């Protein structure tokens, strides 16, 4: 049994690389997902994933398949969209979600246009974004660095960020940290998405950020508890997904995300904090 779990990683270096990459991503992204969920911005991850496309495309056109150019381009584009949406939300009648939707759609269309303009039409998602099984050294270093930066920055802005989640009015009135915290957080979101895309593919980036966070909601109530359970869930999903992909021959990215999805469904049912089954049990107890 133990042998079956370790053998693929001992025999193949691509499996070890995939595992390390997924674990690094699982360390950086789920905490961001927890805060996205608490701030009711869960869908923003998906929107931003489209927004970074033109930047990645321009990076690709200028420098070819250079991880650095494509990541930097994607980061710049994602940040531009996030900031523009924030700016419009603050200076016009439009809410942030509406302006974000508008900007990411424009950005996505621009990205498709830029790539098509080159005449070549290699499948975008295959070329612009990585796959779990093809992590090279540069991609691993990128993912690990971004996870490190992300955790460090999160530690620094942790207190104002938690306040902003639960009592934004108070933070705004008591301190000037509200806007800087918000924008630093946006930077972290974009950073983590870019790292996930470049190394592991679209599905992985958004999926590993949000699914563990939402599942964690059923296992913990305070923010630190949420973060720990989200990271734990992401670790478990990565390892299980890789093994499922290895033994049952299914594509790796979808396997990992589906396992995280199963964790989520199981959590809905049996989670200790508000799981559906626990809601049923006491009533039965009373009837008896």
């Amino acid at each position: 049994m133990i042998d079956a779990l370790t053998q693929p990683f001992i025999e193949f270096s691509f499996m070890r690389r995939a595992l390390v990459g997924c674990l690094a991503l699982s360390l950086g992204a789920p905490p961001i997902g927890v805060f996205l969920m608490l701030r009711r911005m869960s869908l923003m991850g998906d929107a931003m994933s489209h927004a970074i496309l033109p930047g990645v495309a321009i990076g690709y056109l200028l420098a070819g398949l250079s991880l650095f150019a494509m990541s930097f381009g994607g980061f710049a584009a994602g940040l531009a969209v996030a900031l523009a949406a924030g700016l419009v939300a603050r200076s016009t009648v439009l809410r942030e979600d509406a302006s974000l939707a508008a900007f990411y759609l424009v950005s996505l269309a621009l990205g498709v246009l830029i790539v098509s303009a080159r005449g070549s039409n290699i499948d975008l998602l295959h070329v612009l974004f990585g796959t779990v099984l093809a992590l090279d050294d540069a991609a691993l270093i990128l993912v690990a660095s971004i996870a490190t930066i992300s955790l460090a920055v999160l530690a620094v802005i942790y207190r104002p960020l938690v306040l902003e989640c639960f009592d934004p009015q108070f933070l705004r009135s008591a301190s000037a940290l509200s806007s800087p915290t918000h924008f630093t957080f946006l930077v972290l979101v974009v950073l983590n998405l870019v790292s996930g895309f470049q190394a592991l593919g679209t599905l992985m980036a958004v999926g590993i950020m949000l699914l563990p966070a939402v599942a964690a909601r059923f296992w913990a109530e305070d923010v630190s508890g949420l973060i720990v359970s989200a990271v734990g869930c992401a670790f478990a999903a990565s390892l299980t997904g890789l093994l499922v992909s290895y033994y049952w021959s299914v594509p790796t990215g979808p396997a990992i995300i589906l396992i995280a999805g199963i964790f989520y469904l199981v959590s809905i049912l049996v989670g200790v904090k508000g799981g559906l089954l626990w809601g049923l049990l006491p009533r039965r107890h009373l009837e008896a």
Partner: protein
Amino acid sequence: MKSRLVASLGLALVLLFGISAHAQAADKVKAVASFSILGDMVRQVGGDRVDVTTLVGPDGDAHVYEPTPADAKNLAASAILFTNGLGFEGWMDRLEKSSGFTGKVVVASTGVKPRTMVEEEGAKEETITDPHAWQSLANGKLYVANIRDGLIAVDPAGKAVYEANAAKYLDEIAKEEEAVKAALAKLPEARKKIITSHDAFGYFGAAYELEIIAPEGVSTESEASAQDVAKIIRQIKAENIPAVFMENITDYRLLDQIASETGAKIGGELYTDALSPADGPAPTYLDMFRHNIETLTAALSA
């Protein structure tokens, strides 16, 4: 407010129509070919009498192409459409219908004996037709004959020209086929195994006795599983497969990883589903074979 609305609508219309006007070459047979390799073959047979538009251009991936309005316009204005068939251009049916195309459709692979392959999708096995028939020059001859007959049907006046062009082209293809067989015959038997990224060399391998292994299936749309990659790595190690090859249309990162894990060397870039631009190493069908054979023999004989 209202006048501003009218003015901006007017401006938008001017912009739209301004870019749609363009000149057309008169009195040539207008033909459309679905992808660059087929386009080149039609050009060789049609010569000066035919004006060929290619939908999926050089270095493009026809498995997953998204047609543009210009494609529909070109198709509607043309007399004849050449497709590969065998399920290669999944998007073609919809384009044909939506463009209102009324001309003749020639499926270039007609008469080819299709290769089917069993693809494992998890537990269930699926039989899939391999569309990459042009990768065998014997099939290429069938393509040329089909193209010739199609062109004669829509432009009977040019019959003599098409027949002469086709005969000359068939001759060149036959010569190239001899050259390919001769070049590959020189390779030692144990080294006639290669890895490519998607399964495009089935016909090539069958015709010229080369064993081909690919992590992706016959279409570039599928994604490799960890098991697929692990199997290939084991196979490379067990059978001492000397080289892996990139394709001009697919992602090379996975192969890169496989190569670095097994110590197989990267043999170079092969052209499979699309030609290179005119200044590249494989601007025509026959150049593509010359380039691929050169790349293969250089890597496998070393």
